[in-house]
């Protein structure tokens, strides 16, 4: 039986945007849990956008929330789960591949345009 992919799931399986890739890259580069404000500073995302993406990744099981006490106050930090780690690596690799292919294609187009081969 072919699984029916709903419109909502189809949206979620789309290629992550540059901002999402940046967020995933930040998660991969961080040593441990990261706070929301640190993520905002690292990715230059707005609060609404950042927490929207975080919610989506949390719903998909890519993130886990951890409550810490910082300066006497509760603060939530976020960390990639195992599934999220795989997803982030795969997404970054795919993005890198896409970039390479596109760059290669552009380079090939440039070569053809600049030095057209005589038939």
């Amino acid at each position, binding site marked *: 039986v072919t699984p029916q992919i709903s419109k909502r799931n189809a949206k979620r399986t789309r290629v992550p945007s540059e901002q999402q890739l940046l967020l995933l890259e930040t998660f991969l580069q961080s040593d441990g849990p990261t*706070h*929301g*404000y640190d993520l905002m500073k690292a990715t230059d995302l707005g609060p*609404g956008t950042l*927490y929207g993406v975080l*919610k989506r990744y949390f719903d998909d099981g890519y993130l886990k*929330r951890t409550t810490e006490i910082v300066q006497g*106050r509760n*603060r939530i930090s976020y960390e990639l789960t195992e599934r999220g780690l795989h997803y982030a690596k795969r997404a970054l690799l795919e993005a890198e591949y896409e970039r390479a292919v596109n760059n290669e294609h552009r380079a090939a187009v440039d070569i053809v345009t600049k030095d057209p081969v005589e038939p």
Partner: protein
Amino acid sequence: MTPAPNLSPLAAMLLSVAHAIAPNKDKLWLEDMQLEAAFVPNKLRFAFSALKLALSFRWKTLKHNRPAALAFTSVALAALATLLFVPRLFVNQPTTNVAMTAPDTYETTSEYLEDAAAERGITAEAQAGGPAAEAPTQDAVAEAGPEVQEPIATVSPPAAITPAPQLEPRAEAAEPTDTSGEEASGDINQESLALEPAIPDEATVPIETTVPIEATAPSASSEPTPDAAAQADEAMSNSVATIAEAANPSNEENEAQAKQRNIPAPPTPSADTVVLSTQVRNPTVTLEAKESALLTIYSGSDFAGNPRIHRYLEPGEVLTLTIPFSLYTNNAAALSVTVDGSSFSLAETNTEQFRVFNRP
């Protein structure tokens, strides 16, 4: 979930509203944002973003329920607009007054008089020195003495200034008692004109209006005497009274002023008076004085209330009036009326006339 203690009231309120708006399954993220807001420098922007995020969460839940989505969106937008604009009402912003200025208008008559005098090169010395002096000052009258018999100041207000009725100041001054001329009467002309009240008049005066101002100067050969000084004092006090009354004229005061200036009281038609009527389609009527004539204009067609204009028109003076209005003149032959494009004289002979101009 209580907001962080170091939040501003507005940010805390926005976060609370966002938390209330968000669906239950997404409230967790709004709580996260409330906690994180304590560590964010720009807390207000953060709170607004939280509100926007909560609205987007709520919108997704209402995606397939169009009437509810519409209602919710309307309420949410109204709330957002209120939150955005209401705080600005409490911010003291400097108010900017945009003055309606026109290049040919003056705020006060005195400004115009000064400007007009400067244009014509009239100074106090010139007024006192020559027979062409038009608006003698106190000093000028006092110094001129015998040369100035009846100086007449001709004032031409601009189009934007409506001439006040029955306020042509006439100050009859006696011989000056002081050589410095401080108590002479000539200078009250401009002052009294400057204090003339701006009577709201439907009629506008498109061209120059000549307002005669007379002041009687002392004779040449007479020396200052106690009687003359008393007369000068009386004239001065009358002039000062004229200025005071002009600032706040009433009907009775206007009548008193008119008597002082030898202008009869505004007439009203008696029971046996014949009142002519002219039906006008065009709302504006133009009156042109061919000779000097006393003109009294009332608003409306019943000669009631205070007259809008009550003074002598000078030859060549043109008034543009808006119907309906009532007119009295002591010299009907002197007035030429232009109505609906046709001009005619009010009468063939020099007679008094009451006439009403109104719509057909």
